[in-house]
């Protein structure tokens, strides 16, 4: 996995607390921060994209607006899933009509 160095300033109290946590859990401080950060970012990202997908699917925001906010990859995926979901529903209705005839016939 590729990594990048990020420098951040944190309050000394927080670093003291981190010391205690790492001693008690017998874990490496850097690894522990990375794990916690990854968990939180993943959760927050999913929640935000969930809200964005609500707005997009309900037609409140356009693909272009999604693209401006989070980039073209996610905007394209949203459009692709939305279109396939619609197509699946429509095709299901058409097959359902045939199925109804076949069952009753």
């Amino acid at each position: 996995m590729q990594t990048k160095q990020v420098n951040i300033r944190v309050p000394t109290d927080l670093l003291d607390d981190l010391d205690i946590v790492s001693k008690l859990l017998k874990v490496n401080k850097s690894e522990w921060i990375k794990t916690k950060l990854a968990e939180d970012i993943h959760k927050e990202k999913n929640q935000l994209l969930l809200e964005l997908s609500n707005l997009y699917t309900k037609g409140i925001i356009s693909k272009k607006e999604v693209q401006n906010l989070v980039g073209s990859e996610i905007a394209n995926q949203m459009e692709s899933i939305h279109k396939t979901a619609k197509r699946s529903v429509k095709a299901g209705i058409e097959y359902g009509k045939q199925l109804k005839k076949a069952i009753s016939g």
Partner: protein
Amino acid sequence: MENSLKKQFLVDTSAFISLESVNLLKQVINLFNIITVNSVINELKDFSKHNDKYGIIAKRVLKFTNKISMEDTDVKEQIRYLQNTNNELFNLALKKKIPLVSDDHKLVHHTKDKIDIYFSTFFLTAFVTAEIISKKESLGMLEKLRDIRNWKNNIIYLTTKEELEKL
């Protein structure tokens, strides 16, 4: 319905799991000719080794194995973003010219312009239209399918719900 009259569908691991998680697989197998490849059965066997939610559902799917047709095919057209099983399914759909049902967003995304591919919600609307299940039942099933609450499933849920409510 006679077997020869049944419409054929290819189904992948994700769709088998979705359909069985809402107890719809038995009806799907009775009313359609369901086809898959051996690698899908192997994936389900791998899932079934675990005692988590998906493992339990996979075990239930495997009980239908004798009612599912198995077919193999050569992979003549390879999509590099897809794993082997998905390339097999894609090639079989191309060869047999039949729809593939999958809830794997990646598989859908890379094959949607080349084959007929649908999410498993296809069967929900088909069954409501054919009056096999009620609209209320289908909405309950859709709610269950939304269980994995990521933004991708959320789009499928909202889009299908809107259309189901119009029926």
